[in-house]
């Protein structure tokens, strides 16, 4: 789960990391009203869950209103903008990035500082039991050519950032940019906290900040309990009971004679009940051209899974071909039963066959339509 910049900065402020105090606006009118309370110019900062930070500077409240109207109707890196943060503009001489991150591929925690102009990056490994020792911060500070009179402020900021990382169960805590003002102060102009989903059970305050509307645009998300969707660029949905099986199903599309490309890849954990299958099918993106449901019936019988499938209300309204492949316990009987049902879906016994069948049914459809 990712926190918006304005939430992140509220938490930063609570931890003692210097931030600007801004105002949140959800409409152009609110943005203008907020701007009127600040000294111009102000910065209009789009609140999106994307990596990049998108903002514009405005000289008058009227211009703020115009910018707000534009931002609230556009998408930034695939994310719709629902809120804006209006902040006073400050005079900045240098900008840095400061990131504490769990490095997934190496299984360790790192702190990195970089200069935004020369792209120079220095990093240090952190011990989860010890955190940021001051000397490590000083190595970073000298690495980014920070004047030595600012080192103690920088050390304090890195240690407070680590505290945020720990206190809120973040997997990544970033200050971007960390600005050096003309007056000689360090201030966190922007920042993001990525929170570990597995730790939300003990982060009630953070979990309540979840922006469900914005998360609909996330490429990987929970769509219902025990149903998780990962969004790939293609248009064939792959639904399976298990993350590995779902990936394997998506990968197998490339083997079709006329290769297909995976879109929604959906993992169901536990038994594929009517509710879970229903949630999976209802979450399909609008560009979906076909669906493969691939279930390995490990602790449940394929006949039960087949009955759940036929019990799906959404099947009648599904306008794209659906191929079901059941394997495991009782799979043959389930296949026979499904094959005898009125044809709202195709039943097959191997994944390769499922992919070929879908590929053919889609190319037949094209030739039939043209």
């Amino acid at each position, binding site marked *: 789960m990712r926190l918006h910049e304005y939430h992140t900065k509220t938490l930063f402020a609570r931890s003692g990391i210097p931030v600007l105090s801004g105002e949140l606006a959800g409409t152009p009118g609110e943005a203008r009203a907020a701007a009127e309370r600040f000294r111009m110019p102000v910065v209009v900062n789009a609140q999106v869950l994307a990596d990049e930070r998108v903002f514009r500077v405005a000289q008058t409240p009227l211009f703020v209103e115009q910018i707000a109207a534009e931002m609230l109707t556009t998408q930034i890196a695939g994310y719709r903008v629902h809120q804006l943060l209006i902040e006073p503009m400050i005079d900045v001489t240098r900008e840095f990035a400061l990131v504490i991150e769990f490095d997934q*591929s190496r299984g360790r925690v790192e702190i990195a500082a970089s200069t935004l102009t020369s792209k120079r990056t220095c990093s240090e490994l952190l011990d*989860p039991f010890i955190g940021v020792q001051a000397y490590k911060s000083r190595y970073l500070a000298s690495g980014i050519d920070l004047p030595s009179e600012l080192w103690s402020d920088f050390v304090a900021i890195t240690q407070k950032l680590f505290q945020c990382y720990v206190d809120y169960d973040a997997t990544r805590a970033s200050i971007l940019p960390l600005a050096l003002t003309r007056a000689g102060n360090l201030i966190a102009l922007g920042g993001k906290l990525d929170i570990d989903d*597995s730790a939300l059970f003990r982060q009630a305050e953070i979990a309540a900040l979840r922006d469900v509307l914005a998360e609909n645009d996330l490429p990987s998300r929970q769509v219902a309990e025990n149903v998780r969707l990962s*969004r790939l660029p293609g248009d064939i949905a792959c639904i399976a009971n298990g993350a590995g099986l779902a*990936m394997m199903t998506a990968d197998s599309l*490339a083997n079709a004679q006329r290769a297909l490309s995976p879109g929604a890849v959906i993992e169901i954990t536990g038994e594929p009940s009517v509710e879970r299958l229903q949630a999976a099918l209802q979450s399909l993106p609008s560009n979906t051209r076909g669906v493969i449901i691939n279930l390995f019936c490990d602790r449940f019988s394929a006949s039960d899974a087949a009955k759940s499938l036929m019990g799906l209300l959404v099947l009648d309204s599904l306008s794209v071909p659906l191929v079901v492949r059941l394997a495991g316990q009782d799979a043959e009987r389930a296949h026979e039963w499904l094959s005898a049902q009125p044809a709202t879906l195709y039943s097959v016994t191997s994944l390769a066959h499922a992919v070929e069948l879908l590929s053919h049914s889609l190319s037949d459809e094209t030739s039939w339509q043209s």
Partner: protein
Amino acid sequence: MAILINHDTEFLVQGITEQAGSFHTAQMLAYGTSIVAGVTPEMGGAWEHGIPVFDNIRTATEATGANSSIIFGDGPSAVDAIYEAVDEGLRLVICVTDGIPTQDSLKLKSYLDRHPRTRLIGPGSPGVLVPGRANAGIVPGFVASEGKVGVVSRSASVAYEGMALMSAAGFGQSTFVGVGSDAIVGTSYAEVLALFEEDPETSCIILMGEVGGAAEIEAAAQISIRITKPVIAFLVGRSAIPFVRMGHAGAIITTPDTTVEAKEAALKSAGALIAHSLEDVVSLLHATGHASDQ
């Protein structure tokens, strides 16, 4: 002999009175797994499927001689359960629970490094299965059959399907080890490969991996240094794109060396055979001529 589990491995089940723990204990017992005790705090004195339940591991081991454990239960209780198992000196701890908070896992991993007596499998492990002898975890027993192929996998579902295909084709397994789906796990592929290398009952090794993380790259290094038995690798997640997590916590492309292509290249240059489907795994097993029981 098989690996990890032998004739004197006696399990206790942590979380035995909870729903998943109770259900799977019945399945494991039916398979013939040696389970001698259960542990659920505040439930000491109860019985579950004919197995005595204790409040803690110390009293359970004193009374029954249990030396290994299987952990069920939710995230917070699983972390506590692992620390207790380590501190009580259990030799093999299989954590079925997945989704352990990353910061807990980092500390746990560091703690385990200082307590090498205990080997942790998981978190997020479907278990360790020695066909015909012991099923410690949640693997559906019907997928496996006795044989000489060692199987190690991060994904449970791919392993089930793969073992069912292998079994149907006459390639039984010596041991299956599910290393776990979490980003940080106690035992790596590399360590399991080394155990298979030493195991006289294993003649060939199947490594089932996926996109994300460095575990398969480490495995490749291990293969080139230490492994003389044939290794067949099958990886899923080829269709993943950068920074989109594919289900498992660890299944995400973060750097170029975490893609399936990069991992396959590393495994291939280390001498592993690369399978492009599970059917392909079976064909390669035929080709190695090592592992068939027929």
